[in-house]
């Protein structure tokens, strides 16, 4: 590893090299030098997308490849120190933006951070409608663990119950994900309809809240399903 002390120029409306107005472009219209992406640029803006949740992954990839060709350090080897620094920083932002938006779950988590100021990791929360099932699973997991510890081969009963409970959780997760998909559409329609005069603030907040809740439950279910899978091995 290496330590570097290069400072990146701050993104601004003027080209860092020739001071011409760059009007938000990635390359200066006058001297064609690469411009730094704003430190606070959001990933949707970076990839030229509206803040919508349904993204065509094919065109996202095309855009990512196109921008990689513009920013990647491979194309700046013979350039000035400053251009190389900008290319490295821009590529890093671009790669993170693509990685985040490519995956629907990471995409919505990111949107929640942008729109609702959620923490980086949304904590897991047990789905209340499955409270009893979850308690039973907890019991069965403990029982299985105890039986295994005593080298008792009679585990079939508990294993069968855990398998049934696992399918209940699988079904719940699928239901959550399909509701999430609906919410993606609801959100996108709100974005399309909203304007300065009619921001649909309350409706948007409602959708964000429900999405956040679904993600919490989903995280919880994933942990529980992983525990079951581990116990059943």
């Amino acid at each position, binding site marked *: *590893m*290496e*330590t*570097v*002390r*290069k*400072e990146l120029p701050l993104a601004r409306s003027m080209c860092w090299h020739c001071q011409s107005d760059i009007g938000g472009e990635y390359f200066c219209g006058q001297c064609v030098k690469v411009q730094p992406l704003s430190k606070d640029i959001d990933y949707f803006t970076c990839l030229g997308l509206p803040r919508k949740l349904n993204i065509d992954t094919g065109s996202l*990839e095309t855009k990512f*490849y196109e921008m*990689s*060709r513009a920013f*990647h*350090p*491979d*194309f700046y*080897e*013979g350039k000035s120190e400053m251009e190389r620094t900008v290319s*490295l*920083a821009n*590529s*890093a932002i671009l*790669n*993170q933006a*693509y*990685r985040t938006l490519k995956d629907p779950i990471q995409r919505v988590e990111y949107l929640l951070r942008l729109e609702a100021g959620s923490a980086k990791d949304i904590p897991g929360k047990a789905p209340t409608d499955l409270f009893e099932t979850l308690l039973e699973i907890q019991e069965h997991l403990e029982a299985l663990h105890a039986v295994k510890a005593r080298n008792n081969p009679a585990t079939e009963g508990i294993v069968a119950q855990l398998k049934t409970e696992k399918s209940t959780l699988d079904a719940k997760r699928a239901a959550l994900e399909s509701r999430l998909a609906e919410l993606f559409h609801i959100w996108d329609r709100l974005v399309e309809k909203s304007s300065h005069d009619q921001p649909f603030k309350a409706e948007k907040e409602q959708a964000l809240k429900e999405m956040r809740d679904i993600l919490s439950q989903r995280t919880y279910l994933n942990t529980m399903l992983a525990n079951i899978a581990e116990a059943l091995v």
Partner: protein
Amino acid sequence: MARIVGIDLGTTNSLIAYMNGKAPAVIADAEGHILVPSIVAYTPDGLVVGDTAKEQLVRNPERTVYSVKRFMGQGLADVTQELHYFPYKLTEQHGVIRLHVGDKALTPPEISAMILKQLKYRAEVFFGEEIRKVVITVPAYFNDSQRQATKDAGKIAGLEVVRIVNEPTAASLAYGLQKRKQGLIAVYDLGGGTFDISILKLKGGIFEVLATNGNTHLGGDDFDRRLMDVITSELKSKRGVSVEGQPALQQEIRIRTEQAKCALSTDTSTVVRLPLPDGNGEYRRTFSRAEVEALVQDLVEKTLGPTRQALADAGLTPTDIDEVILVGGSTRMPLIQQNVQALFGKHPHCEINPDEVVALGAAVQAGILAGGIQDMLLLDVTPLTLGIETMGGVMSSLIRRNTTIPTSAKEMFTTFVDGQTSVDIHILQGERELAKDNRSLARFQLKIPALPAAVPRIEVMFMIDANGILNVTARDVRTGEAQSLEVKPSHGLSDQDVERMIKDSFIFAQQDIKERQLIEARNEAESILRATEKALTRADRLVRPDELTTIRTAVADLQHALAGDDHRPIRRAIEALNQATHGLAERLLDSTLREALKDKKLSQIP
């Protein structure tokens, strides 16, 4: 732009390649050898590298270093299990292995630098110009310390390493360029000491690595050791010969088992013939391919786990893969080919020589960096998760494995007590929960202005560059000022170490191009001076007086130039003297010819 060449710095062999117009090509030496054995030997005549060093393996085992790549960026604890296979003594200092060769203790980057110098020299002879910029390949699964050690080796060899490229991805570049492939490909790379698997998506000139995995201590060497173990134990039980304390015999066994393994790639059985020391005659042992395959089966299986993991990380199943490419000498083994074919359900490709494909790919990447190739772009990933140690010895991850590089992560640090002026940060790489089970990359101390607890806010940026090497920067969020970092690499050389090594890097007389040019120019000057004196005494009748003055002046000029240590004025003076003696030389030649022909008939003239 200056020329950039590509180097495959291998465990067993190394080679160098360049872009010859639109196609990459390897550079051979005067005898036509392409591979430089990655071996360095200290002989009474000095340091030798490559084929000459290979001859020293048995003659001079304790002073002949091979497979040094296995030690790059490693501490002694990382290699304890294989130590007894190496005849030279190893110690550790500041987390870095030292190899004891004769009276010297050298680090792996210093040894690797000697191999790099040999390749540099080869390219300089080929191009007739100095080579400074290189792309060097490393196993995709190399961690930060191993990559940094490779970069240090380049520096010590007097090279600027413009890019570290992963071997399997380099191979994909060579294939992509030559075969214009598209779709999903898997590169299975089993070399002399390392195994890599990379899954890539090739589309419109973009080579996007989706996932990579591997094992940096699994390769052909390990296969050889299985055979060596058989012979070693049989020698003891059947012939009462112990190899312990007999490094020459150990090397002999190693070389012959390697040959046997290679022979079994084409033959179904082979005989190892081993001359025993102290008049114990010869030991013979027949190995069938089936027996050897049984001996190494578990090693081959050790490659399949990482392969499946890489596929899973890419979100793919084996049948999604359009083409499988084999790289590395060890993939010549039919057993490997069968296992790979069984896993992917398709016949693997190996049209490009598996020994050369990585170097060719490095040349392609060099071509991209030099601007000669504009339609291709490699988007590689970091192979291991990067994190820091947090409370309770747990690793908190900052950058997940298989993230496209360059990439960065930011972390905010503050203080817990009033007036605290530093925070210690321990950087790790690996996939395990606990810090102690992961690779320690470095520890650094973050300097913080003395303020009440929790007031300072220092943002640390972890940036993995396109070489897969970590760069750390810190800034005080309140003031916006950069904060200083003192990094102590866990298994690496400090900047000062590298500087010192560059300085006392062995003056490899025949390798140091300037010195060599000077020596050559001096030798030529001395021989032309001798020849001129001789001609002047023998042919004083033939010299015109004005000509004699010119020649005398040119001789004096050359003698003057010889006193300096720059080869260029010597060359110019040689040229001037040649001009001055040109007429005389012709006349002399004519007269000598007449003398020679005087008593001969025409038919006797050849």
